[in-house]
């Protein structure tokens, strides 16, 4: 399998030759993941608050959105955003279509986790906030969300891991991310096992980093015990 000699046809040589495409693929995967996690966190937190505290019609809309998004395969969502929207005259670059689709998906997951986290904060916290005269938005910001965000850290990390893995699906609409880069390299040199193993290890490393960051954050918030 892994051959450590450095000559054409060996893994290390081929990887060296393809180093710029590999770096580019890595960058596309990482940036798409990071953007998705960023957007999904912003929108997901807002939607989670709407699910927990919104007016009934807002809750209903958010609920429909969340259940819909969680019920369809991500791939369908990606294909729709890229090909489907172009039928309506909206032509997004593949990269952005992919990021939007992944964000739409992850938003639903984060919204649902945030709603759960918010509702797991004891009712007495809201009441204590009321009792000192905090307005609703202040209670949310200074009392409820700090506790809810801490509680949703583990599932949030999970969503992040899913997002990274989900970026591989962008290869289907032609985004040259890490997986498609490797496919293209393999098509030239047939080092199938080596390059897919390599790709797998890179994904593993990205996700290990995310998990590690998550664990560090969790430790930072360890004072939040009950």
């Amino acid at each position, binding site marked *: 399998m892994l051959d450590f000699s450095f000559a054409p046809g060996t893994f290390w040589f081929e990887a060296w030759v393809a180093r710029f495409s590999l770096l580019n693929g890595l960058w596309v995967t990482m940036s798409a993941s990071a953007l998705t996690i960023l957007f999904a966190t912003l929108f997901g937190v807002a939607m989670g608050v709407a699910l927990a505290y919104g007016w009934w019609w807002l809750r209903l809309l958010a609920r429909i959105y969340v259940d819909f998004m969680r019920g369809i395969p991500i791939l369908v969502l990606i294909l729709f955003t890229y090909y489907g929207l172009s039928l309506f005259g909206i032509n997004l670059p593949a990269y952005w279509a992919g990021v939007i689709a992944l964000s739409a998906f992850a938003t639903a997951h984060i919204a649902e986790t945030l709603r759960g986290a918010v509702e797991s904060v*004891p009712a*007495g*916290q809201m*009441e*204590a*906030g*009321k*009792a*000192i*005269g*905090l*307005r*609703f938005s*202040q209670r949310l910001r*200074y*009392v409820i969300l*700090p*506790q809810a965000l*801490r509680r949703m850290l583990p599932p949030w990390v999970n969503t992040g891991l899913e997002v990274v893995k989900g970026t591989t699906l962008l290869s289907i609409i032609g985004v040259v991310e890490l997986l498609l880069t490797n496919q293209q390299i393999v098509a030239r040199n047939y080092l199938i096992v080596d390059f897919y193993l390599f790709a797998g290890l890179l994904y593993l490393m990205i996700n290990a980093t995310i998990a590690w960051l998550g664990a560090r954050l969790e430790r930072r*918030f360890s*004072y*939040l*015990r*009950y």
Partner: protein
Amino acid sequence: MADDVLLRARGVRKSFGAVEVLKGIDLEVRQGQVVSLIGASGSGKTTFLRCVNLLEEHDGGEILLDGEPVGYRTEGGRRRRLSETAISAQRARIGMVFQQFNLFPHLTAEENVMLGLTKVLNKPKAEAREIATHWLSRVGLAERRGHYPYQLSGGQQQRVAIARAVAMEPRLLLFDEVTSALDPELVSEVLGVMQGLAESGMTMLVVSHEMLFVREVSHHVVFMDQGRVAQAGPPEAVFGNPESERLRSFLGRFHGMFGI
């Protein structure tokens, strides 16, 4: 009518679904007075306090704080609910201490006290910290100001909660069985703090099962029974001369704790 009436409740009614829990409560708390609410479990004491602090909305009657209706204004003879901002402003003038402390677990003792000072009263951080230090010392916890709630005992947490409420300089402080969740040996440190507040002239409405404390500290005792005020008066009268069988049997449960 004396002008020093701070809180006046008239005919306050409250139902949960079909169950009427408060059936017309009349009650007055004067400036600087300690009024205690006693009564059996389920008689509506907590519900009444929650109505005063707008954690529940009363369905009928009126609750006036400084002569101003709490929770609504009357417009052309009709009651209209106040805005969130106005309700928050009213709540800020009433402090509340809960049975379960309800400290903010993500904030230190000091930050718990400072939150309302900086966000509601808009005090600068430095001033808020000074006030927090002052009140934490008053409840004997100056040394613990950097501790998170989980690092404090129940009695210490409850004292922080009292400091948090009183630091806002409320017109009225509500206490709802604040020692009921505490281990017996921690009760007296909290009651001591409350007694100190009472002596310094704080106006307090206290729900408590600590009859010795009630008798010692209250100016006025209100016995609630099944959503009504069954007897009210100075502690000597309520404890010494219970008019109803129900009050006698209620007090009988505490027999031996004091000489009746």
